[in-house]
């Protein structure tokens, strides 16, 4: 045993109290789905974990109707203070059941337990805690006094941070006074279903949060549902486009958090040890299944060789294997489908002339695994410099001047995140000004906080999650004069009031249309 080897230290799964089968969580109860149930497996062993219900269109109807009832009768009438108290309860329950959630997350997703335990789950609690405090302070959210909630929010989330993405979606939606129908990713439904049990413990009014499981067609049916006022999606840019088409011509408000191809820019005066750690964290955190991953390393030419050598040394010390082992750095790839995509793009990188280096590590027999990989000599035109790989694969490019670094960093249709490493504060701020990306990390990478807005420029989507800005995605300003800004709910209020005068003041109704069939479904949704 060398000094780098450790005895196995797996986290016990005895903390889990899983059911063999999970239903859909609708109107506060678990109910059977009408679609064909599916299995969720551990990507590290391919062993079955549980059978999961599959929601078809009728189930989506039920869930949206439950959310609408809860909105009309309970949640939209509740004081902000009481909504906040429910969210505080949820935050506390997540903390109380943190170990269980972390183990379940690593089991179902494949990410190392040290990440689910130290990053995902603590952030989940923090997210609910942060937005709980907002619920009775919405006048200060930046939309003027008395902002309105939107109604029923349809939320479709990816498999890379299953519970954390749930928190990013549900916490601000509830704080703002909306009700929710959420669909977790097909491959990672487990923690969302445990979260449903937490909602029962919190005694959250029935129907305020509904969780329906299924594949892409379930998500597509939810997004397209006429009873939905708001769509929030995190996943691939391809699906994001389909959703943007799907909602065209409707009154639905949309936020999209999509793909990325972040540049991590290392200047020659960077604190090199921290930079190496930051580069590793930037692309190998969560097996690279991170939309904001620093997948393009832009390193100043004169330190290229040194940086690459140090990276290879560092990567050689990473331990790949059992996600539940406390010493594991690199867990399992989430699905066979994703593994195939990573392999395909990596092969293309090699075929296009880049030099491939793979960290030496043993690959377990079962499950889906991909060893940390670096490509050097990558051209800006190469697929591995342009396409989101969403895996532990780093493309290394060089630059000579700050202007060249900025031009290369911005040379992408994406604009989610970027990193800058330099000891010179003035240069960091000037470069940060020029980068077209929504989140910029200077001398750090992959930091997340509920107080900090997150979201993209360009084709990485629109809207922000986190912070005060994240509330804007779930609120509308109070109607002023009413005419231009009239919405579905206020129109409904006008109709319900039966006021001729109000009806006469209503502007020409928007033309609506039969929904178009999106060119893609939400299958394979991922960040």
């Amino acid at each position: 045993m060398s000094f780098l080897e450790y005895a196995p230290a797996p986290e016990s799964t005895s903390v889990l109290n899983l059911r063999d089968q999970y239903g859909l969580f609708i109107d506060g109860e678990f109910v059977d789905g009408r679609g064909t149930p599916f299995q969720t497996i551990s990507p590290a062993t391919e062993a079955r974990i549980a059978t999961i219900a599959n929601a078809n269109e009728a189930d989506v109807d039920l869930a949206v109707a439950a959310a609408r009832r809860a909105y009309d009768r309970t949640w939209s009438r509740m004081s902000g203070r009481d909504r906040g108290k429910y969210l505080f309860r949820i935050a506390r329950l997540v903390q109380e059941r943190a170990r269980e959630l972390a183990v379940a997350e690593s089991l179902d997703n494949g990410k190392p337990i040290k990440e689910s335990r130290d990053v995902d789950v603590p952030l989940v609690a923090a997210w609910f805690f942060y937005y709980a405090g907002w619920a009775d302070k919405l006048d200060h959210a930046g939309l003027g006094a008395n902002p309105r909630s939107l109604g029923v929010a349809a939320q479709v989330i990816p498999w890379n941070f299953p519970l954390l993405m749930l928190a990013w979606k549900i916490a601000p939606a509830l704080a703002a006074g909306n009700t929710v129908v959420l669909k977790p990713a097909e491959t990672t439904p487990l923690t969302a279903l445990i979260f449903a049990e937490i909602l029962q413990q919190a005694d959250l009014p029935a129907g305020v949060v509904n969780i329906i499981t299924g594949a892409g067609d379930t998500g597509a049916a939810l997004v397209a549902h006429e009873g939905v006022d708001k769509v929030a999606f995190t996943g691939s840019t391809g699906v994001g486009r389909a959703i943007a088409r799907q909602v065209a011509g409707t009154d639905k408000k949309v936020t999209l958090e999509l793909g990325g191809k972040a540049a991590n820019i290392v200047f020659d005066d960077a604190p090199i040890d921290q930079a190496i750690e930051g580069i590793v964290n930037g692309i190998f955190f969560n097996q690279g299944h991170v939309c904001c991953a620093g997948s393009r390393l832009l390193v100043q030419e004169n330190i290229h060789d040194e940086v690459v050598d140090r990276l290879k040394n560092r990567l050689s010390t990473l331990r790949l294997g059992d996600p539940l082992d406390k010493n594991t750095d690199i867990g399992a790839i989430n699905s066979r489908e994703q593994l195939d995509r990573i392999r395909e793009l990596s092969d293309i990188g090699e075929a296009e002339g880049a030099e491939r280096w793979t960290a030496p590590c043993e690959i377990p027999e079962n499950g889906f695994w991909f060893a940390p990989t670096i490509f050097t000599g990558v051209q800006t035109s190469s697929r591995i410099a342009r396409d989101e790989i969403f895996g532990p694969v780093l493309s290394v490019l060089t630059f000579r001047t700050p202007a060249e670094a900025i031009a290369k960093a911005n040379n992408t249709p994406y604009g989610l995140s970027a990193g800058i490493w330099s000891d010179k504060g003035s240069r960091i701020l000037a470069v940060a000004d020029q980068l077209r990306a929504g989140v910029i990390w200077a001398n750090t990478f992959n930091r997340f906080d509920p107080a900090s807005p997150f979201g993209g420029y360009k084709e990485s989507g629109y809207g922000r999650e986190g912070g005060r800005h994240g509330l804007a995605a779930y609120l509308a300003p109070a109607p002023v004069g009413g005419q231009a800004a009239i919405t579905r709910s206020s129109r409904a209020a006008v109709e319900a009031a039966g006021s001729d005068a109000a009806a006469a003041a209503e502007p020409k109704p928007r033309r609506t249309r039969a929904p178009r069939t999106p060119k893609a479904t939400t299958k394979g949704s991922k960040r």
Partner: protein
Amino acid sequence: MSRLAVPKTYKLYIGGAFPRSESGRTYEVRSATGAFLANAAKGSRKDARDAVVAARSAVGGWAGATAYNRGQVLYRIAELLEGRRAQFVAEIEEAEGVTRAAASAQVDEAIDRWVWYAGWADKFAQVAGNANPVAGPYFNISVPEPTGVVAIVAPQDSSLLGFVSAVAPALVAGNSVVVIASERFPLSAISLAEVLATSDVPKGVVNVLTGSPAEIAPWLASHADVNALDLVGAGDLDWIDLEFAAADTLKRVLRPEQGPDAAAPALGRIAAFTETKTVWHTKSMK
């Protein structure tokens, strides 16, 4: 004995110049009473694409100008407009067939909106931005930045006020715009372009197309170098198709507004064409 008037040729406004449509096409603009007013340029797909090129090349300079400077430039538009008030009142009176009082009110309100939005230029970031109290040793700040090139279908039922109400907020944060003027009332928009050309607005920051919105808007909606689409005046077009086309490049889209409050002055119109950038920086004594 009356003097023979010298009529003006109304052209497009692209990249700070006043070209005719490359298509060579014009269309007749008539007054409310049916009298011939002018042959306006009937912009084409090529004109729209030229305008996007001009707008894109102008973004860097305009977005890079200080907010204080942008505020002064926008305020100067109001100053120049005030000086040419009589011209616009007469133009609107004739085109829309409204009373002098109504035309004057429209011009006054347009001038005042420039002033209102000009004042936001160096304040918006303070209202929309944040220092974020993250749980760690980081300086963390969020600031709004311009989205880039914004294509606008101006309100169609207004000569000047609708146009200004849509264009001014997009300029505040540093976007450049390509705007399709009202098809029926295009002349004031081109007269305003003359104001812009002689104010300090850098060339290419505002580009004005006249002609058929139904013909031109689809090219802007699908143009990959347009970042955002304001459909405020597109209510009578097949605007759903435009929003649909905009999804291909995930453009930010503002949907049509109708009625007298369309494009009413609001912070939300500035915010709609900004992106929030959040910068994290480590803090350390070492």
